[in-house]
């Protein structure tokens, strides 16, 4: 049984700088050949103000800033026993290379199923850019196999 007093907890804000090289590294890793992730001129010609990040890139900020594993450690969950259950992105605007994003993570829910055989941890990280505009909200469901 996980400590449900964490429900509603908000973690300190963090700042994530979107480096062009990280977007390239991400596109290479997922083997997406789209040139908009690689060449500023191509991205601009396609109508973007800079190199855009691929749709699921925002989750890099979550992992880099230990927002997921940090919460699991706080809940005394063994990282080897977790699976990603669900992930949902809601977008207000794209992430671009050069953005300085501010993120904040909140714990939304903790519950169990199958008589405690599985625990579920629901959290949401919201990102805003350097002009204070909201960029995206990322809702994560982590499943713990007890």
């Amino acid at each position, binding site marked *: 049984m996980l400590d449900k007093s964490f429900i509603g907890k908000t973690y300190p804000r963090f700042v994530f700088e979107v480096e062009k090289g990280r977007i390239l590294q991400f596109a290479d890793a997922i083997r997406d050949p789209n040139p908009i992730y690689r060449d500023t001129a191509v991205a601009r010609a396609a109508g973007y103000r800079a190199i855009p990040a691929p*749709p*699921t890139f925002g989750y*890099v900020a979550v*992992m880099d800033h230990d927002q997921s594993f940090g919460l699991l450690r706080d809940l005394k969950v063994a990282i080897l026993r977790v699976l990603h259950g669900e992930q949902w992105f809601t*977008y207000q605007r*794209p992430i671009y290379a050069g953005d300085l994003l501010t993120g904040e993570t909140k714990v939304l829910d903790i519950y169990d199923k199958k008589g405690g055989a599985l625990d579920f941890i629901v959290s949401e990280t919201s990102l805003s850019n350097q002009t204070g505009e909201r960029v995206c909200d990322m809702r994560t469901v982590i499943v713990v196999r007890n």
Partner: protein
Amino acid sequence: MPSLPSFATIAIGDKLPGLTKPAIDRVQLALYAGASGDHNDIHLDDERAKAGGLPGVIAHGMLSMAFLGELVASWVPITAIRSLGGRFAAITRPGDVIACVGVVAAKSTFEGENRIEVDLTAESVTGEKTIVGKAFIAIP
């Protein structure tokens, strides 16, 4: 930027151009671990994965979700994507070939904007669904 399909002509049941990715291998898992910041041992180390009760290393679920992102962003501009996500329904292992499928499920108007709802699935060659997801896309 891909040009947007038209809201008037798009029909429920229309399929997005499909995307079948090269087989996932361990090098890709290492590259994705570095690129994504997710260094969990279950994606990189067989012995540690087995200690966690798994059959061996498994692929990051977010790697396959990135494939779904590629599917959608190859069809419409990134600026048109209002939401994207899904439930991870089965584990993916090195050697698996993932096919991404998108089917228009509904058309609606939300806050004055025409939107389509697309059912997204990532599935292995055996037909097993690994992600059951959805995207909402703004279409003029």
